[in-house]
C-alpha cells in the first residue's frame, strides 16, 4: 500500500522512485482530473499522497502503451461483457464495463408479468401516475366464457408433478383462525389447495389464565378447547370448529336444536365470538415497501395508479 503521508524531505525522491519503478515519466505537468477521466481502469491515486499541492499524475494511456497481451485481454473482456449483457440486463453498454465503471445490477425498469412468450417491459416512469383511479370507461360488461374451472377434489393426494406451487396467506372470516397459510397448486385451470403444516396463529399468544390447548400436531384433525366465553353463552351463539377449520355457527343450534352433524359433535372447541382479543406482540417489523409509479402492464398503464403497501 502506498504511503499516505510523505514527508517533505523525501517526498520528491520517493515519488520519483515510485514513478520510475512503475514505468511512469517523472514530469509533473499532467492534471489529476485528466488522468482520472482517461484512465479509469487504473486505481486512481489519492491526491493526498503527493507532497505538493498539485499532485502530478500521469496519463496512463499515453505513457504506457498497450502491450499485445493487454489488447487480447481487452478483447476477451469485451466478448464476455457482451455475453453477460445478453444474459442480464446490466443497464449499460459493454464499453462501460470495459472501462471498469460499475453500475447497479438491478434492473432500472423491472420486467413484469411473464405469462406468455411475449415479455412486456415496464413503461418508463413518465407514463406512471400517482393520480387516483379514474375509470375511463365503465366496467366491461361483455361476458365471456369463463375458463373451465376444473372440478377436482381439493383434498386428494394425487400427483402434483407439473403443478406450480404457491404459498398463500389467506384471511377468511368464516374460519376459526382467520389467518392461515395454505399451499396452492396450479396447473392451468386446475387449482388445488393444501393446508400448510404448522398453521400460523398471528397475534394469538398463550396467556396466563386463559387455558388454550395447543393444536395437536402430526397432521391429524385439530381439536381445541377453550373456555366458553360468558358473552358467547349469553348471545346463544354456538360456534364450533369443523375438521376443515371452518367456523361453524349453526343457526339451528341457536334455536336449541341439538341434531348437529357428527363432525360437529366430535369437535369440542367452543369459540367465543368476538370477545377473545389476545394481546398483540410488541415486536413489530418494518414493512417498508417502496412506492413507484409503474403500471403493471401496458394495457392498464394509464388506468391504474400506484401505491405501496403500508
Amino acid at each position: 500500500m502506498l504511503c499516505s503521508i510523505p514527508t517533505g524531505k523525501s517526498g520528491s525522491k520517493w515519488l520519483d522512485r515510485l514513478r520510475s519503478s512503475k514505468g511512469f515519466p517523472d514530469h509533473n505537468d499532467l492534471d489529476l482530473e485528466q488522468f482520472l477521466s482517461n484512465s479509469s481502469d487504473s486505481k486512481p491515486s489519492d491526491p493526498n499522497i503527493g507532497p505538493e499541492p498539485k499532485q502530478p499524475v500521469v496519463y496512463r494511456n499515453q505513457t504506457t502503451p498497450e502491450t499485445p497481451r493487454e489488447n487480447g485481454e481487452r478483447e476477451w473482456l469485451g466478448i464476455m461483457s457482451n455475453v453477460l449483457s445478453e444474459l442480464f440486463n446490466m443497464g449499460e453498454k459493454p464499453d462501460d464495463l470495459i472501462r471498469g465503471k460499475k453500475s447497479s445490477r438491478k434492473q432500472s425498469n423491472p420486467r413484469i408479468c411473464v405469462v406468455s412468450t411475449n415479455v412486456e417491459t415496464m413503461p418508463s416512469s413518465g407514463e406512471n401516475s400517482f393520480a387516483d383511479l379514474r375509470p375511463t370507461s365503465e366496467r366491461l360488461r361483455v361476458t365471456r366464457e369463463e375458463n373451465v374451472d376444473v372440478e377436482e377434489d381439493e383434498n386428494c393426494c394425487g400427483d402434483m408433478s407439473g403443478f406450480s406451487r404457491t404459498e398463500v396467506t389467506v384471511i377468511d372470516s368464516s374460519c376459526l383462525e382467520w389467518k392461515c397459510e395454505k399451499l396452492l397448486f396450479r396447473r392451468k385451470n386446475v387449482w388445488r389447495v393444501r393446508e400448510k403444516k404448522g398453521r400460523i396463529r398471528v397475534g394469538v399468544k398463550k396467556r396466563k389464565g386463559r387455558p388454550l390447548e395447543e393444536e395437536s400436531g402430526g397432521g391429524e384433525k385439530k381439536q381445541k378447547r377453550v373456555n366458553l366465553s360468558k358473552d358467547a353463552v349469553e348471545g346463544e351463539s354456538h360456534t364450533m370448529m369443523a375438521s376443515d377449520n371452518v367456523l361453524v355457527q349453526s343457526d339451528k343450534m341457536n334455536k336449541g336444536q341439538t341434531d348437529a352433524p357428527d363432525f360437529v359433535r366430535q369437535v369440542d372447541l367452543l369459540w367465543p365470538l368476538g370477545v377473545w382479543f389476545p394481546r398483540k406482540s410488541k415486536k413489530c417489523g418494518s414493512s417498508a415497501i417502496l412506492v413507484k409509479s409503474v403500471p403493471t402492464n401496458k394495457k392498464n398503464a394509464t388506468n391504474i395508479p400506484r401505491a405501496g403497501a403500508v
Partner: protein
Amino acid sequence: MPPLKKIKKSKRDSKKLKKRRSVSVAPTDCKASDSDWWDSFWLKNSPTIESPLPFDEAEGFKYFFRVSKKTFDYICSLVREDLISRPPSGLINIEGRLLSVEKQVAIALRRLASGESQVSVGASFGVGQSTVSQVTWRFIEALEERAKHHLNWPDPIRMEEIKSKFKASFGLPNCCGAIDATHIVMTLPAVETSDDWCDQEKNYSMFLQGIVDSEMRFLDIVTGWPGGMPISRLLKFSGFYKLCDSGHRLNGNAITNSDGAEIREYIVGGVNYPLLPWLITPYERGDVLNEVSDFNRTHEAARSLAANALSQLKGSWRILNKVMWRPDKQKLPSIILVCCLLHNIIIDNGDYLRPDVALSGHHDSGYSEQCCKQVDPLGRITRENLVKNLQLSNQNALPS
C-alpha cells in the same frame, strides 16, 4: 469470600430492579408525548382557495382520515394498549418526543386512506418514512386483532333485520346479503413464482371477496387468494362456501309463497358466480324474457350493494385502489382486512362518508365479468320461485 459474592449479586439485582422501575415509569409521562398533533397537522395542511379541502375543521378531519373525531377516538381506544409508546422501543418523532397513540393512528389512517407514499405521509406529520412504515404496520397488527367483533356473521335476530330490509328495499324475500369480489392490483418481480398471481387482465392481483348486508356492511370476507383464480373457485375455497354447503349457514327458516313454493335463505351474486341453492345469480341476457326481466332488475339492485360497498371501500382506503409495489403477500391480506374493519367501524359508529370519497366508477374497472355456467338444479328452482314471488307481489301491489 462467598458472602462478598452474595452481596455483589444482591447489588446487581437491586440495580436491575431500579432499571426496570425506571422503564416502567417512563410511559406515564404523558407530557413528553406528541399530543398536539392535530393542531400542527391542520396548520401544515390547512386549506387554501385552490385546494379541494373543506374549510370546516371537522370536515377537514374527515377528509384526511375518513372518520369523525368521535370514531377516531374509538379506534384509538381499541389499539391503545398495543400502540402506546414505551421507551426505549417507543417511536419518536423528529423533535425527539414520543409519538402519541393518536398521532400513530392518524399516520396509519392517513397512509391507508390516501395511499400516498410513506415519504409524503411522513412529511405531512413531520416524521420519517420508516416511522410511517412501522407505525402503520403496528396499527394494522393491532386492529386486525382488536376489531374482529366488527366483522362477523350476524346472529339470527340481526339476520331477520337484514332480511326485512332487503325485502323492503328490493322486494326480495329471505335475502341475507350480496356477494362480490374485487382485485387488489400489485406489481411483483418477474420470476416464475409470480405467475400464479397473474390474472386474466395480465395484472398481478389478489382477490377480496365480501358479503355485505343491506347497509353495505361487510358480514364476511375472504382475501389472500390470487386474482387469476376463477370466481367460482375462489368461492369454493372460502369458509363461507363450506359452511353453506354443509348446511351450517344460511340455514334459517324458509318462507313459503302463496302457491306453496319454498324460498330458503340465500345471498345474491353476479353472473360470475355459480347458481347455487343459497346463491342466486341473475338470468343470463340471452335467457331473459319479460317475466324475468323484472327479477333481473331487482336482483341487480340488490347485488349492487356489494359492488357499491367495494367501491366505497376502495375509495375510502385508496391504498387498495392503487397498484402496490411488490407488497409482502403475507402482509397484504392484513392490510385488506383492516380496511374492511375500518369500513365496518365507520358504519357501526354512524359516520357518514363524504360524497366524494367513493369511487365514481366500478371497483374493478378494467376487468370484464366472466360468466359462470355452473347451475345447480335446486338453485334454479329457488330462482324460479323468486320470480313467481316477485310477480305475485307486483300483482298484489297493483290497485284493484
